[in-house]
């Protein structure tokens, strides 16, 4: 199929009011959820997922992508106005955004956050469109050993960079891999850790695990400290972001977008490190470097460009390789599966209309984000006033309905509750949840590819090193482990 044919197929799929309406609703929901401290973009995407079961695949994915993109931008609103990041990715925005709000320039900071976010989002979408197809065609050469090496590399980097410690990240990933072994064996069909319960033979429900890990711990945290969320909201002020502000920060925005695209396309790194790297690069090269941290608008632009530049790029490994780049794309991969789609190189052949439909939707999403974001900035006060002690019980009820709806099974609700407590214990012990969830998703793939490789080679492990592609991923894995271990040791033994 030629490019024009693919584009036409994509247009045919999304060229209707319903698809764009879903995208718009998704962005609105995402911005609102991102703007409420404690309701992260991840939680918003997870809670929206059950509402997509009755939709067509393209509408469902567009809705979730809208929530994702809206959530990342929405997180900057409370970061600037109440010094509480709505999502972890907005932490860097606080550094200059909140000082600006304190001196009455919140409107200007939020305006810049919006323009930088939309620009970075557009750059990121462009990167996705340019590179995903190319990477997918390359990945068609992958066999089980190559996929095994790729997934192992992805898990290594996710475990290493998701939290503060490689060891705690690795522990989290191993727990996720172990949980994924529950169910019937992939080759022989024998029981593994099912405890004789037929509900566990198909493995634990992915949506129950993810909602349990990412939504329930927030509710449990509220029980632990019901007043932790209370903060003082700053007024918008009269100053607005001008064209001159945007022009002066443009270099930092583009640099931040590129950093976001680069880091976002590597599985596991995510938006927060990208925002901080973009911010530190902008501070290093800026004429106003002394003002950074005191309310410099270029700092807001850089951090927002860094975190939004990731949004489209994380879809590159998802669509091209079937490997989620971060937790949110891990949830989106679940949505693909719920709708009978398997992301990966074959999707570019079998479902090219959906791929191009998504590309078109993503381009439009940057424009919609500008519209929704402009309104959201003014309406934040209403969002901030939603009493969290009523909101959180509502989230709990939504979780119960949503998880039940997946399989019409009360057992899944129990799994969600148990995983919620597991997630809370992990949170209290500073164990990152992202490696757990991604390992839970990739675990069966990792094992399946390993065992297929062994079957192909008659149990000769040398097949796992059979060619340049596997060597490349093994090399990256060792470099990642070496680099993370070295940086950990350096932190432990400060240079004198």
């Amino acid at each position, binding site marked *: 199929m030629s490019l024009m044919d693919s584009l036409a197929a994509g247009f045919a799929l999304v060229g209707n009011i319903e698809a764009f309406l879903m995208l718009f609703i998704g962005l609105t929901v995402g911005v609102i959820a991102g703007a409420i401290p404690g309701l992260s973009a991840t939680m918003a995407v997870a809670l929206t997922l*059950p*509402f997509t*079961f*009755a939709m067509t695949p393209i509408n469902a994915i567009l809705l979730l992508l809208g929530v994702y993109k809206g959530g990342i931008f929405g997180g900057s609103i409370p970061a600037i106005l109440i010094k509480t990041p709505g999502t972890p990715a907005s932490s860097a925005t606080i550094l200059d955004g909140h000082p600006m709000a304190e001196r009455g320039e919140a409107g200007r900071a939020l305006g810049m956050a919006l323009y930088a976010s939309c620009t970075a989002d557009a750059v990121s979408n462009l990167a996705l469109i340019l590179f995903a197809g190319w990477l997918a065609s390359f990945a068609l050469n992958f066999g089980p050993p190559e996929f095994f090496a790729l997934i192992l590399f992805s898990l290594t980097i996710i475990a290493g960079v998701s939290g503060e*410690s490689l*060891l*705690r990240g*690795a*522990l989290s990933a*191993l727990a996720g*891999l*172990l949980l994924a*072994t529950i169910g019937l*064996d992939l*080759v*022989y069909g*024998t*029981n*593994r*850790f*099912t*405890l004789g319960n037929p509900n566990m033979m198909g493995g634990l429900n992915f949506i129950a695990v993810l909602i349990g890990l990412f939504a329930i711990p927030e*509710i*449990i945290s*509220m*029980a*632990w*400290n*019901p007043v*932790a969320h209370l903060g003082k909201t700053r007024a918008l002020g009269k100053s607005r972001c001008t064209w001159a502000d945007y022009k002066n920060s443009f270099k930092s925005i583009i640099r931040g977008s590129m950093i976001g695209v680069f880091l976002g396309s590597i599985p596991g790194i995510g938006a927060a490190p990208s925002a901080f790297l973009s911010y530190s690069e902008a501070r290093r090269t800026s004429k106003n470097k002394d003002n950074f941290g005191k309310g410099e608008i270029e700092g807001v632009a850089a951090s927002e460009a860094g975190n939004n530049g990731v949004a489209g790029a994380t879809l590159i490994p998802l669509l091209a390789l079937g490997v989620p780049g971060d937790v949110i794309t891990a949830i989106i991969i679940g949505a693909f599966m719920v709708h009978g789609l398997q992301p990966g190189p074959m999707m570019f052949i079998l479902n090219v209309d959906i791929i191009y439909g998504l590309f078109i939707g993503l381009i439009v999403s940057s424009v919609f984000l500008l519209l929704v974001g402009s309104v959201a900035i003014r309406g934040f006060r209403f969002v901030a006033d939603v*009493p969290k*002690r*009523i909101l*959180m*019980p*509502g989230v*709990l*009820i*939504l979780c*119960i*309905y949503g998880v*039940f*709806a997946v399989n*019409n099974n*009360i057992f899944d*609700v*129990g799994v969600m*509750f148990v995983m*919620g*407590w597991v997630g809370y214990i992990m949170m209290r*012990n*500073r*164990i990152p949840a992202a490696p757990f969830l991604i390992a839970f998703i990739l675990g069966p793939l990792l*094992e399946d590819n*390993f*065992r297929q490789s*062994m*079957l192909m080679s008659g*149990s000769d492990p040398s097949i796992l090193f059979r060619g340049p592609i596997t060597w490349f991923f093994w090399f990256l894995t060792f470099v990642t482990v070496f680099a993370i271990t070295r940086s950990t040791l350096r932190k*432990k033994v400060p240079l004198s």
Partner: protein
Amino acid sequence: MSQKSLHLRLGIVASLFALFLVFYAIPTYVFSPSNVGNIILSPKFWPYVLAGFTAIIGLGLLFNAVTSATDTPFEDEETGHPEGSAPWMRLGALGAIMVLVMVGLPLLGMVWTAMLAFAACAFLFRTRHPVAALVCAVIVPLLLYAFFAHVAGVAIPQGEFVRLP
């Protein structure tokens, strides 16, 4: 809490869990056909590999804790920590609500159980808007029921007492 004490605790738990897997859980709960000659292809192989790595990580955490010279608390440790036994009691109460939800779902149905759970949670979280909480406790489960039962076509449990259209 410091990194040293955290890693010590996690290291002990991970090591014990790995031993539990190797000596009890995998032999008892993972079944392998008797005709599988090659251990690499056995259903038990992958769990054993993961248990081995868990042990290695556990030992790594212990080594890190033992060799760590400093014992300083984490910089971003929660400072406004609620004191006393009240937080623990609220956690226990939330756990009890979750257990009651599991019991109530087949008995009362999802809508009524959700209403009770919503109200119980709102009061557990000491809401400053009790009337609004009660109104939401009735409306939110009904709206979700309407969506999931009549739009998404999900067979929401109705319970044994009052059935909804």
